[in-house]
């Protein structure tokens, strides 16, 4: 059992659930306490100790039955030929002869209610490439492939033929219906078996997988354009980690800042040892509460990196309570509500789905004007204004007036651009016009640069 639990834990880890050594130790303690006899209590003790995040609960719920459900939970299969008279059985045998070897085997299985044996399953796994699969997402897809490898469509076709023939040869309708039902149930059970097997196999592969350690340093310096989906995944995780690091850093900084105001309480307390003579003056800590307005370009020209940029925006919003996040293509949308209470991936997908890219529809100028009209109240002297975009305005009016107004009102205006400076001003880029109005213009084409940029932003409040 212990071994099974360890494998389960490593499968969970492969599924993206963070589990530390201390937590797995807790899980063993909890299981010692409640035992393994009662499945529900066992499940709950694992769940309470291993999963610390509502977003990871579905992963747990998916993997748990694959590891700890015994095979008896399998749907029962029925022998549809059991009640046949000898003549009928002979008829059936006759009919089956016309099909090829493989097809006949399958038909017999369905009629008799036999499960696939381990050997057959292993063969299927080999044929469909299941042995290398490590992502639960593709479970259904592999199950389908396996069914196809079993030539399930043809089998169904053949079954229909057989039923028709049997009807013609004078089997009663009632008997036929009954058989049909049994076969239906058998089919489902078989499908279920294949599906379970696929899940188990993938889970097993996951638990055997080496811990994911794609070379982060290398990826950090790779331009966003040159990233594969898989690398993107790794980077997304990295962004989350960075966000956590930034969070503790920002907390420190906020504490260090002093306002110069006298803290009477602290002063009296500190000077008790001097009999109340204020020798040691204490000042009040000034909690800097920065405000952020982030506008993110998610138009076609930025699409390749908008996901990462949005995850950055998400992280910032998580970090700084007073953050207003916007995204625009041809017009501005307030996206902070989309982020609230969702886990990052879901939130970002929601935003990207809500605002599908168009062709040549980017209009930064319009978006800026719209911002100045509707949301100007979010900008004051405490606000740091961050614009994430390439400044490619599709030859529309850049609305420099509105931009200047925003820059003047805000504490700082920062532009994060994924394009290298030599491309600024080329084609439809208005970057050179915007640049002088900003306090900082940062080029961030890799995650490394992006992190550094954000770190710098937060370090100079």
């Amino acid at each position, binding site marked *: 059992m212990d071994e099974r639990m360890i494998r389960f834990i490593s499968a969970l880890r492969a599924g993206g659930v963070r589990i530390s050594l201390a937590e797995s130790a*807790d899980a063993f303690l909890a299981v010692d306490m409640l035992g393994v006899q009662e499945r529900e209590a066992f499940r709950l003790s694992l769940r309470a100790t291993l999963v*610390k995040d*509502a977003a990871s609960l579905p992963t747990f719920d998916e993997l748990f039955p694959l590891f700890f459900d015994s095979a008896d939970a399998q749907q029962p299969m029925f022998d549809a030929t059991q009640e046949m008279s000898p003549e009928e059985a002979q008829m059936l045998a006759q009919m089956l002869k016309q099909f090829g070897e493989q097809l006949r085997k399958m038909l017999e299985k369905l009629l008799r209610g036999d499960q696939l044996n381990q050997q057959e399953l292993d063969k299927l796994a080999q044929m469909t490439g299941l042995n290398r699969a490590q992502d639960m997402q593709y479970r259904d897809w592999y199950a389908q492939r396996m069914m196809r490898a079993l030539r399930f469509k043809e089998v169904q076709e053949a079954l229909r033929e057989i039923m028709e023939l049997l009807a013609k040869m004078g089997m009663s309708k009632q008997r036929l219906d009954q058989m049909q039902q049994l076969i239906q149930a058998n089919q489902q059970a078989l499908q279920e078996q294949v599906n379970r097997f696929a899940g188990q196999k993938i889970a097993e592969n996951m638990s055997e997988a080496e811990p994911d350690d794609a070379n982060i340093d290398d990826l950090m310096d790779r331009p966003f354009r040159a990233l594969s989906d898989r690398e993107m995944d790794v980077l997304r995780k990295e962004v989350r980690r960075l966000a956590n690091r930034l969070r503790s850093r920002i907390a420190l900084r906020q504490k260090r800042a002093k306002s110069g105001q006298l803290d009477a309480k602290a002063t009296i307390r500190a000077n008790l040892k001097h009999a109340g003579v204020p020798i040691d003056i204490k000042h009040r800590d000034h909690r800097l509460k920065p405000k952020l307005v982030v506008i993110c370009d998610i138009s076609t020209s930025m699409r390749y990196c908008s996901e990462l940029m949005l995850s950055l925006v998400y992280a910032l919003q998580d970090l700084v309570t007073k953050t207003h996040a916007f995204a625009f293509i041809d017009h501005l949308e307030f996206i902070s509500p989309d982020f609230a209470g969702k886990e990052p991936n879901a939130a970002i997908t929601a935003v990207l789905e809500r605002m599908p890219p168009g062709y040549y529809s980017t209009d930064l100028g319009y978006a800026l004007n719209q911002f100045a009209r509707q949301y100007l109240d979010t900008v004051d002297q405490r606000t740091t204004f961050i614009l994430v975009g390439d400044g490619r305005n599709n030859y529309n009016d850049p609305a420099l007036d509105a931009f200047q107004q925003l820059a003047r009102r805000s504490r700082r205006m920062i532009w994060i651009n994924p394009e290298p400076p030599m491309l600024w001003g080329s084609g439809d880029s208005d970057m050179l016009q915007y640049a002088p109005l900003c306090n900082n213009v940062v080029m961030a084409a890799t995650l490394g640069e992006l992190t550094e940029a954000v770190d710098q932003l937060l370090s100079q409040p």
Partner: protein
Amino acid sequence: MSDTSNFSTPAQVKDALNSQQYIASDEIATTVFLTAQLGKPLLCEGPAGVGKTELAKSIAGATGRELIRLQCYEGLDETKALYEWEYAKQLLYTQLLRDKLQDTLAGANTLAQAADRLAQEEDVFFSMRFLLQRPLLKAILNDKPTVLLIDEIDRADAEFEAFLLEVLSDFQVTVPELGTLAAVHRPIVLLTSNNTRELSEALKRRCLYLFIGYPSVEQEMAVVHLKVPELAPKLAQQAVELVHRLRGLDLRKSPSISETLDWAKSLVALNARQLDREVLENTLSVLLKHESDLQKVKRRLDVTEKGPRLEEDDRSLRRRN
């Protein structure tokens, strides 16, 4: 039931919580049982108003322990959460005891001798007498076992979270003037979070985790029946079903159990016989706290003899989870 060590099975926890008018699912009962047995803090997450705070109160009631509550907010720090020297009282005492002090020092010949004598009395001023105990220290020093509720931890700053780690891992606190104070009894600790921000991994690692979601219709019926027994069962059924459908809508704030209960109470107060349009229009504001939500639901609401129903479009069909 005087102490948690009496809990020997999760079923017992469930019964004890039920006796406190808290209907616990198996999941809640098992997790609470493990919390008590393993002596680890329990982190409770879930939407607002599903009874996370109530759970702590019920555990306190069921175990006969005192409940000590620490409400978190932005800017909460050690002096508010742990302890503070009562400086005003110290000053006052110094003033009042001046004569006595002079007596003490009177016989001293040298300055050094006077200082020594004073040093002997130093403990008077840095004793428990002048230590203002805040919730965390109270829970640690209490001579009876307690339940410590740290409410809405997600509202506190990250640095407070880090500070909390230290307290939660060994249940001891170092006060520089007094030395280390260790817990007499290990309290049962409950942390609640509405997930407005992600908590640090380190904190999560030290806690057991319980996610309390919205209850099923049957569970919620049972809660309504328990807390508002005056409401007719048929009406309660209709009301709970409507609430469940409301939760399926894309609302800014979905109604929680506490709001269902408020609603049930107002239905009783209004002496409502059935959920007709008039009653609904008058009482919906108890359930929905945003004007836009209210308008949205009113537009969709369709009252028939069978009771209220909502016109559902594709968006509203999107279920949670």
